[in-house]
C-alpha cells in the first residue's frame, strides 16, 4: 500500500493527474480534485506518472 499527499495550497486543479492515474485521482463536477490517499502497490507506476505530470508539482508520496 502506498500513500499520497496533495499540497492543497499548491494544487491548482489542472486535472493532469486524473489523466495519468484515473484509478486514484478524479476531478469532480466543480472541477476540484478528489483522490484516494492510499493506493495498491500495483498502481505505483500510475501514481509516479501523475506526480510527473502535475504542472505545479503538488503531489507527494508519503513514506
Amino acid at each position, binding site marked *: 500500500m502506498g500513500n499520497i499527499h496533495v499540497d492543497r495550497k499548491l494544487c*491548482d*486543479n*489542472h*486535472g*493532469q493527474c*486524473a*489523466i495519468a492515474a484515473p484509478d486514484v485521482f478524479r*476531478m*469532480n*463536477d*466543480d*472541477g*476540484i480534485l478528489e483522490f484516494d490517499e492510499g493506493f495498491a502497490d500495483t498502481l505505483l507506476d500510475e501514481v*509516479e506518472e501523475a*506526480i*510527473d*505530470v502535475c*504542472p*505545479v*508539482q503538488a503531489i*507527494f*508520496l508519503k513514506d
Partner: protein
Amino acid sequence: MSSRIVVAGASMGGLRAAEQLRAAGWEGEIVVVGEEAHPPYNRPPLSKALLAAPGTPEEALAAVQFRPRASATGIEWRLGTGIVAADLAARTVTLGSGESISYDGLVIATGLRPARIVAPGPLGGRHVVRSLEDTLALHKELVPGARVLVVGSGFIGCEVAATASELGCSTVLVEGASGPMERSLGKELADGVRGFLNARGVETHSGARVTEFLTKENGNDAGTCGGVVLSDGTRLAADVVVEAVGSHPNTEWLQGNGLDLSDGVLCDEHLRVVNAGPVVAVGDVARFPDLRTGAGARRVEHWAIPTDTAKIAAPALLAYLAGEDPPAASAPLPSFWTDLFKIRIQGVGSPALADSVEVFEGDASAPEAGVAVGYFRAGRLIGAVTAGLPAGIQLRYRTAVLNQEPPGALAVAPGVASRT
C-alpha cells in the same frame, strides 16, 4: 569498465531522461551535464506566479525545484558547465571547461534559449524570461505605475503582460505577426483573448514589429532601452521592455556530426536521432514525426513534452545498446495551458495544424465566461481548447480528441451541453 550514458542538459528534460533510464532498468552510470548552476526546476511559474511574488532567490528556487523520483539514484549531476562540442563518431562530448567525457549512450536534452529581436538601439534594460535569474531581475522592475512594454504575444508574452498588469504596471503588448497565442488557439479565440486582456487594462498593438530600440532619455541611463519604434511608425516609451519572441534550439554543440539540425535535432518516432548511433533526444529540442496527425516531423514546445518524450526515448536508447528493436512507438498527445488574470486556458492536440475551427460551447469572444473550441484537419478532430471551464470538462474534450469523435457526440455528453 562501467557503461555510461551522458545526458546533455539538466533541466526538466534531462531529469526526466535520467529518471526514465533508471525506470527502464539502466544500471550503468548516468552523468547529467547542465549549463545552469541550479538543479532542474519547473519553468511555467517563471512568467506567472513566481514573477508576481518570487520572494528571495532561495525561496524562488525552493518553490519551483523538481523533486526527482526516489528510484532515480546514482545520478551524477555536473551543473554550471555546458557541453560545447560532441564527436558522435568517437562517442565523446566536451564541456566548457575543456574536459572530455566518453559515453556509450547520449541523450540530447539541451532545450531552447530565447530568441532576441534584431534591431538597432541599446542592448541594456531588455528582458527575456527563461531562467530563474531572468524572472528575479524582471520582477524587481515591475513596480506599480511602471510602463511595461512586452514584445511578442505567445504564451510567455501574454502571461508576462497579464502579471505586470496585475502588479499595477501600465502594460502594452506588441503582438507581432499574429494575435495573442493565435498559433495555438486559432484566430477566433485569439481575438477573444485580446478583448479579455484589453478589458483588464492591457493595451495591445497589432500588426507591427519592432524596428528600433530607443535610448532612455536620462543622462545616467545612456545605453539603456527606453522604448521602441514600430514598423508602422508608432513610438512607444517604456520603463521596462520584455522580449518574448520565441526561442532557438540549443544545437550548436552538435555541429560537424552530419546531423539534420535545421530546426532542433531530427529524430525518428522513437526519439532516436537520425544517423547518430546510440543517441536519442528529449524535450523541445527534438523534432520528431507526428504519428497522431500524420503531419511531418516538428518540435513541440509544451511543458509535458520532456516527460512524454523521455518515456519513449529512454527505452529506445537501452534497446539500441542491447542490440534490440525499440518498443512500439507511441504518439504523445500534446497538452498545454496558461493562466491569465485567474482564467485558465487548457488545450490538447495540435490546433496549429487545423484547417477548420468550430466553437463547441460558449462564445469565443468572451473566453472568461467559458468556451470550448474544436480544431479539425481534413474533417478529423485534432485539437480542443477550453477557457474558463473546469478541468473535468477539458478532460471530456481531451477524450474526444484521443478518440477523434465528431463533435455531435460531445453535445449530448452528460454535463457538457448544460454547462454554459
